[in-house]
Structure formats: C-alpha cells, structure tokens
C-alpha cells in the first residue's frame, strides 16, 4: 500500500540522491577544507567497511585495523617516495601487503575466540606500529615519510576526490553484494553460533579468513589513498588508539550494517569539526556516546532505526509485541 511505495522510493531514491550529491560535490566550488573532510570521509568509510566485514558481519573482534591501515600507507608511501614507483602500483602494493599479513597470520589468530582474539589482534596491531616506528632504516622512524608525490594528473583536488569516492562506492557495493550472497549468510551464521554453523557444513575457518583478509585489503587501500592525500605519513596516525576509535565509530553507527558504516564514518570525521568549542572533551564525549549506545542502543544508530521500522511493520501486521531478545551488536541479517 502507500507504506510500501514510500519505502520503495526511499530505498531507491536515497542512494541515488547520495550518489548525485557525491558526484556533484566538487562542482560546488571546492574549497580545500571541505574537500579534505570529504576525502577523509571516504577513506574512513573504507576502513570501517573493512572492519564491518570481520567484526560486524563475521563477529570476530579485530582491534588491528589501524595496523593494517598503517602497513598499507607505509608500503605505498615508501615505494613511491623512495623507489619512485608509479602511483597505481604503489597503492596496489599497499593493498597487497596487509592482505598478505592477514592471510599468513589469520589462520592461527582466528582460531582464537573472544578476548583471546581481542588480545591477539591488539598484539598484531601494536607490533606493526612498533615496527613502523622503530625500523628507522626502512621507514624513517617517528619522523615519518615525506615527499610523497601524486602523479601530475591527480594533483588537483577534484580528481583525487573522485578517485577516493569512486573506490569507496565500489567497496560499498562489494560489501553489499557479499552481504546478500552466500558468503554474507555464512558470516552471519558463524557470528551467531560458530559451532552450529560448522554443523551445517560451513567451513568457518575459511570464511573467517576471507573476512579478515578482505578487511585488511580495504584498510590497505585506505592507507595508500591516505598517504597520497596528505603527502606525508608518520606512525602516530596508526596506533592502538585509532583502532579503538574505529571500533567505537562502527558500533555507534551500527555494526554489521552499511548505513551504520556511513554514520560511523561521518561521526568520526565530522564530530571534531562541528564541536570545535569542546576540543578538550572530544574523547570524553566519544566514549560517553559509545557507553550510552552500548547500554541503550546496542544495534547502533542505523541498526536501531532499522529495527524500529521492522518492529513497526510487525506491529502493523500483528498485534503481538515482540519478545525481548538478546540485543546483539549487529542487527538481524539484512
């Protein structure tokens, strides 16, 4: 009826509008400040989409995302700045190196569960950070890598923006399609109950590894793009703290949902800008929001919104009230 038509319009119209806005953005008279924010938004979106794959969908706690981000950034940066590799190859290498690390270490790491897994990924992320900071002959140490150059074609802000968002949209679509097909369902099954999933014939280890490697790949891509965005990187940007902030953003937005990834990225990038007056309290507010969300809105902003709409629809159909069920971080699949 009318409700369904409205919903269909929103469902199709929403993304179309968003894409139109994204495409038209540079034509709105691009000022460097705004393009910087939008560029960072795209990069953070890649990071959180990746985190969503391993943490949100597959349900495996990974606190290593900033480490993969850093590894990708440094690989791309060093190859271009020190060895003169061309931009596309450098970025591809930046995607490859964390993916490789994830592929090699993923199997033993993902055998662990819960807090063991949390600590293992903390350890992995920290080791990457320490290596980047201490191995000075290779990475330049804490002073960082400077003099990263974009190819002349991409020196302008508009083209680089399109590159970042083109890749971000592609990643978004990829995650959406994975979510809808067998892989996504396998992940959710693993997240809800790994043993039952195995009993149903799902090779949990392989699917978990896939999610892990994909999350690392997306982080590596984000890293490469980031290195060429600011033309300078240092280890400070890739520490444990950032991994935790990424997780917090993902959860506040809504783990395991695409809308949540968007909201989370937006929060991370835009919150500091909108609340300049309270610079002293940023981390405090971030943490407070995380605590409040986990307490009252565990599905995150998007997840709760979706649930609310679904409940409303269910309420229309039957008069029965939904039974209280454990509030998982990620909403019901789809």
């Amino acid at each position: 009826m009318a409700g369904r038509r409205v919903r269909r319009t929103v469902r199709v119209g929403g993304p179309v509008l968003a894409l139109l806005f994204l495409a038209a953005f540079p034509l709105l008279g691009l000022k460097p400040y705004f393009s910087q924010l939008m560029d960072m938004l795209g990069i953070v979106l890649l990071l959180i989409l990746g985190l969503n794959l391993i943490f949100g969908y597959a349900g495996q706690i990974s606190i290593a995302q900033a480490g993969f981000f850093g590894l990708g950034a440094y690989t791309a940066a060093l190859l271009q700045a020190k060895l003169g590799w061309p931009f596309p190859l450098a970025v591809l290498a930046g995607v490859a190196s964390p993916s490789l690390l994830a592929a090699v270490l993923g199997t033993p790491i993902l055998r662990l569960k819960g807090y063991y897994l949390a600590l293992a990924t903390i350890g992995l992320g920290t080791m990457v950070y320490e290596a980047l900071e201490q191995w000075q002959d290779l990475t330049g140490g804490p002073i960082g890598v400077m003099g990263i150059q974009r190819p002349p074609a991409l020196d302008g802000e508009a083209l680089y923006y399109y590159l970042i968002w083109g890749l971000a949209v592609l990643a978004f679509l990829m995650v959406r399609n994975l979510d809808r097909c067998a892989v996504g369902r396998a992940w959710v099954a693993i997240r809800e109950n790994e043993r039952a999933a195995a009993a149903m014939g799902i090779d949990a280890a392989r699917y978990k590894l896939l999610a892990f490697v994909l999350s690392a790949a997306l982080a590596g891509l984000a890293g490469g793009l980031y290195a060429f965005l600011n033309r300078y990187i240092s280890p400070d940007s890739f520490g444990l703290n950032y991994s935790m902030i990424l997780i917090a953003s993902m959860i506040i937005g809504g783990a395991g949902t695409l809308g949540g990834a968007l909201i989370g990225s937006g929060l991370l990038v835009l919150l500091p800008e909108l609340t300049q007056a309270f610079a002293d309290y940023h981390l405090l507010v971030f943490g407070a929001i995380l605590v409040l969300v986990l307490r009252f809105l565990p599905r995150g902003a998007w997840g709760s919104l979706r649930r609310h709409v679904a409940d409303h629809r269910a309420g229309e159909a039957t008069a029965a009230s939904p039974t209280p069920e454990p509030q998982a971080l990620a909403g019901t699949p789809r």
Partner: protein
Amino acid sequence: MFDQLVIAGIATGCIYALLALGMTIIFNSSSLVNLAQGELLMAGGLSYVSFAAGQKLSFALALILAMACAAWVAMLAEGLALRPLRVANAPIVNAIVMTIGLSMVFKSGGEVVWGKTPLPAPSPASTTALWIGGISIAPQNLLIVVSAVLAMGIFWFFFDHTLIGRALQAVSTNREAAWIMGINADRMVLLAFALSGALSALAGVLVAPITAAAPTMGTMLGLKGFSAAIIGGFGSLWGAVAGGILLGLSESLTAGYVSSGFSTFISFGLVLLVLFLKPAGLLPTRR
C-alpha cells in the same frame, strides 16, 4: 648486569601482576575482560597524589583513600554500565567494547579533573639504594615487591579461607548453583569489581613515584596486565601473578640484552606466541 636486570624486571612484573590479578578477579566473577583496568590504576595513582601531595595526608591514609576511590569508580562502572548488559544477556563482545568506551571516558575524565601535566607522587620509601651482594635495590622497588606479595597473600587468604571469598569463588564457578545456595550473585560481582579497583589503585600508588601520575599512565600498563594474565593463564590467580613476573622479566632482559627500542615489539611477539601455541597459558588453570 643480569642480576640487576632481574631485580628491575621483578619489580615491574609485580605491577603487571597486580593488574593481571585485578582483571582475573573481574573475569572470574562475571566472565568479562575489563579493558579499562589500566584506567583504574590511573584513578588510584592520581587520587593518591591529590591526597598525599595535595592534602598532605599520610601514606597509609592516602593509599586507603585512593583504593576506595578506584573501588568506587569500578563499582559505578559495573552497576551503571556493565550489569545492564549482563542482565540483558548481551553477547560478551558488547561488554568488552563497553569497557573500551569506559576507558575513554575515564582517561579524558582524568584529564579534566587533574589536568594533563604529569604530577610527582611522594613515597615513604627513601631514595638511597640498598646494596646487597653487589646488587643495588631501590627502596621503591622493594616497596613494590613487598606490597604486591602482601596483597596477594591477603587475597589468597581471603579467597580460600573466608566465607565471602568462597562465595565469590562459588559465583565464578557456577552462578546458578551459587544463587540456589542463597548467594547474591549481583552483590558478589560488585564486590569483585571493588576489590579489583582497589588492587589496581595499589599498583597505581606504587608506580606513580617512579613515572609521575598522569591520565595516560594506565593505558600501556593495562595492556601489559592483560598480556600477563593471558600468558599465565586467564582465570587463574596464580597464573596472573606468574604471568606478570614473567612479562616483567622478559621485558627487562630483552631491553638490556637485545634492543631497548624493540622491547615492546618483542613483548607482544611473545604474547602472540603464547596465544598461538598454548592459549590456555603457561600455568594450568585452577578451575
């Protein structure tokens, strides 16, 4: 040099052990890993400075008050933020992330209350070293080891020989059975958090005279405490202690003999190795 490094490693290891012990107590009673444990240490250390340096109270009094402060913060966290998750039967991931959020709140809260500059902390230990057999022992380190041993002794006695302690153990082993026996699980968990907070505050009071007290003092220490608990075998009180000492020793020795720059890298490498090869920890769990 070896003996000297060992002494330094044992002292640092005791700090890690106290933190690991605190995390284990919380875990045993509520199956929750508290990633904000370091911030409880920070709360203890900073409030100790306020009491001892600001209000000029005696060491003992300042220590007790600091432990009370941290215990109170821990109980608040449990009652307001963590218990509702437990009641709602939320997946354990939620609770772990909740402690991450709490650690952010505590850390910045600490900055708001005490400012960002590191604050010097007084200590009853003198600054002249004791010389025993050619090895120099800093009185502060001696204080750390003695206090840690005392604290562990008290806890062992408490857990094994008092009614409340055994009730706490019962809750950790089998919640339903304990409830049937009339033990109020919720109250026990609250108690566990309070004890954990007090222990971490003790660690903070002991380490503050060495490193100065600052809102960021707990982060790395908390992580090391977590690593220590895992190395020793999560869930085991003796494992927490052993893991702490082991971690402290390995850090000190690798910094001295291998490389001071890569010591954190090596420490976490060891943690990963333990997790890969023997995730249950190096000591058998006492369950």
